[in-house]
């Protein structure tokens, strides 16, 4: 709260801070719920309001204030957010909300892919044009394992992790020799080759794709199946929705931890200046490979879940155009900020579904959004947080001065970065 022009409010008592955390959390989720539920134009108006609101909030440093507040009451913020998130599938559980549940699950899956892409594009400034291909690798692994081999979906997930990891390594290796445009062109070529290759290999169903992909299941409890509870027929998405949310929360957690860790810092350094990073003793090759591998695993798991959701994989879903949409989501949300990326993915997924009748203009809208965001606000809706080592340092000093202070723990420091 050093900037005098910004929003600076000091909530004195601990109770009022906690109340603010709860209310803001509920507000965010209520907004997401309203955007999902509302009819097309109301939803559109909401999305516009959210965008304008976020821009204003950033200008007056409200976002930073909320961040600080949430970090101070990390456990509470997380618990409330977790409960709110887990309430979503329940709210969309009835059969009649099936479509909204479907959009929400799609938003979860796209968020996972965007988080994966963010490691490369956001943190290390290596624009990967092939997130859809990595997603496709995951989806096809799932399909081949469950349909062609008839094994369980869990093995499919493992296969998705393995193959997307391998692919990430294979495509990551050339990146050690190339950078900038060349790297982007390599990934672009991979994306185009992936789609064409899939179409030409009969084992993968060629252009017909693979039908009848099984979703995950525990024993007889299938994750994508309509159950009847208390006489109400439920949407088939409910168990999968819970599962996807859990995975997404886990991914956000990993992304945040990586972001504040030494890895995140060195990826940012590589993005700024690779030669300098090398001189600082950062093993650039290892860090870049790390970004590619973890990113492609995220994409691969997203793809495997997507295959289970649609019970079908085909080449038309994992194309270059889809990759561009993911890139658009990351840039809109805010590069190198996991929360921003998820917000971007959520907003664009809902926007696409709500504007179905204007699908003719969808590509144009995406492209215009991208051009505008790049010119007007390249940092995205929720820009990445500036690493504040000063605050960390001061706190550490303070902690050393009064060793009995109970409220600050070691963990707080790491997240404060």
């Amino acid at each position, binding site marked *: 709260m050093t900037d005098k022009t910004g929003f600076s409010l000091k909530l004195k008592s601990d109770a009022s801070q906690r109340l603010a955390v709860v209310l803001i959390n509920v507000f965010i989720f209520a907004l997401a719920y309203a955007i999902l539920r509302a009819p097309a134009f109301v939803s559109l108006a909401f999305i516009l309001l959210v965008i304008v609101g976020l821009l204003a909030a950033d200008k007056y440093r409200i976002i930073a204030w909320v961040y600080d507040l949430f970090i101070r009451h990390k456990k509470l913020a997380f618990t409330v957010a977790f409960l709110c998130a887990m309430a979503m599938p329940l709210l969309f559980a009835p059969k009649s909300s099936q479509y909204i549940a479907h959009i929400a699950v799609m938003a979860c899956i796209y968020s996972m892919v965007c988080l994966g892409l963010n490691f490369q594009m956001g943190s290390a*400034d290596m*624009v990967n044009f092939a997130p859809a291909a990595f997603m496709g690798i995951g989806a096809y692994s799932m399909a081949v394992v469950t349909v062609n081999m008839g094994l369980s979906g869990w093995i499919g997930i493992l296969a998705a992790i393995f193959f997307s990891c391998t692919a990430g390594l294979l495509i990551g290796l*050339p990146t050690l*020799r*190339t950078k*900038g*445009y*060349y790297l*982007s*062109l*390599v990934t*672009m*070529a*991979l994306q*185009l*080759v992936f789609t*064409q*290759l899939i179409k*030409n290999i009969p084992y993968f169903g060629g252009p017909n794709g693979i039908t009848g992909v099984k979703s995950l299941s525990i024993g007889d409890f299938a994750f994508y199946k309509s159950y009847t509870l208390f006489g109400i027929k439920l949407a088939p998405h409910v168990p999968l929705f819970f599962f996807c949310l859990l995975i997404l929360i886990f991914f956000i957690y990993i992304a945040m931890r990586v972001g504040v860790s030494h890895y995140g810092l060195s990826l940012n350094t590589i*993005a700024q200046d690779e*030669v*300098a990073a090398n*001189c600082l003793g950062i093993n650039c090759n290892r860090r870049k490979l790390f970004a590619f591998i973890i990113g492609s695993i995220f994409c691969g798991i997203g793809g495997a879940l997507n295959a289970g959701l649609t019970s079908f994989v085909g080449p038309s879903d994992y194309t270059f155009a889809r990759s*561009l949409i993911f*890139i*658009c989501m990351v*840039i809109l949300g805010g590069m190198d900020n996991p929360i921003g990326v998820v917000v971007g993915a959520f907003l664009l997924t809902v926007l696409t579904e709500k504007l179905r009748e204007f699908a*003719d*203009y969808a*590509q*144009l809208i*995406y*492209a*215009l959004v*991208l*051009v505008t965001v*790049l*010119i007007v606000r*390249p940092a995205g809706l929720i820009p990445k947080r500036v690493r504040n080592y000063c605050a960390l340092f001061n706190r550490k000093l303070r902690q050393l001065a009064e060793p009995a202070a109970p409220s600050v723990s070691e963990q707080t420091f790491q997240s404060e970065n």
Partner: protein
Amino acid sequence: MVPMGYLLDLIGSAVLLGCTYTLVAIGFSLFFGVMDVVVFCCGDIAIFGAFSILASYTILNGLGVTGTWPLLLVILLLLLIGILFCAVLGLLTHRFSIKPFEKSSALMPLLSTIALGTVIREVIGLMFMPVTNGVADMVAGENAVHVVSGRNPQSFPSLLSLGGSTAARNIIIVLVTVVILLLLFLFLNKTKTGLAMQAISQNKELSLMTGINVSRSIVITFVIGGVVLAISGFLVGSYQTIMSFDNGSMFGIKGFSAAVVGGLRNTWGAVLGGMLLAFVEVMVSGYVPNGSAYASILAFVVVVIFIVFKPEGIIGEKTVEKV
């Protein structure tokens, strides 16, 4: 076993295809040479040029001009219109996708021009029909020729096929490509403006200090790029005869690949890259049974191999980054 005529046929096709790739690739290397950025919407600008020529032709046709005026005059007029459109589009590209990112990461203009390419493509698809039909109605009234849908394939006027012969057309395409290359080479190496542009590509700060008007040179680059791309659009359109609004993305990717394979900074590299790519595609299609399915995959594999093992391209000096 395979007759000689077959090989000659294939070589002919490859040369022609190579010309179309080269023309788009020149745009890439021109922009990269001066600005040090990849302008990814080159293919779309070229196709936009082709569509503006097609639209003007439709309108001129309604006025009854095409039959009465000499063919050469009509072609020149159409080319002029196409060049005008493409030059303006080139300037717009500079204004909205290059200039705002002068100080930021080099990948920003790449992303921005990809997005701009999509905008151009979609605008052709969505606006072509309303615009052409509206203007045609206004200008030609009852004689207006109407276009079905902007997204449907459109037929490009066969102005170069003198007397219906495709051989003449093909020769003209190759000749014009060579002439453009020569003119561009002469411009870049023999005129003051061209040399200034090359100087900028070598070192921007130093060029500023030596009194070169950098911003003027950049604008000139985009205008010249627009001219070259308009002519490519015309030739590509004449070669294909049937055009689709989204052809630009394919030509963009192929042109960029060709430029990379040849060496991004070098105009002659674009020719070599374009020809290499076209030969790989045509020969694989021609000699491997069912090779068409894999032709473009192989072309991309060639590109990746080049990027990884010889990123400076066929022609190009190796640079080592220093602090």
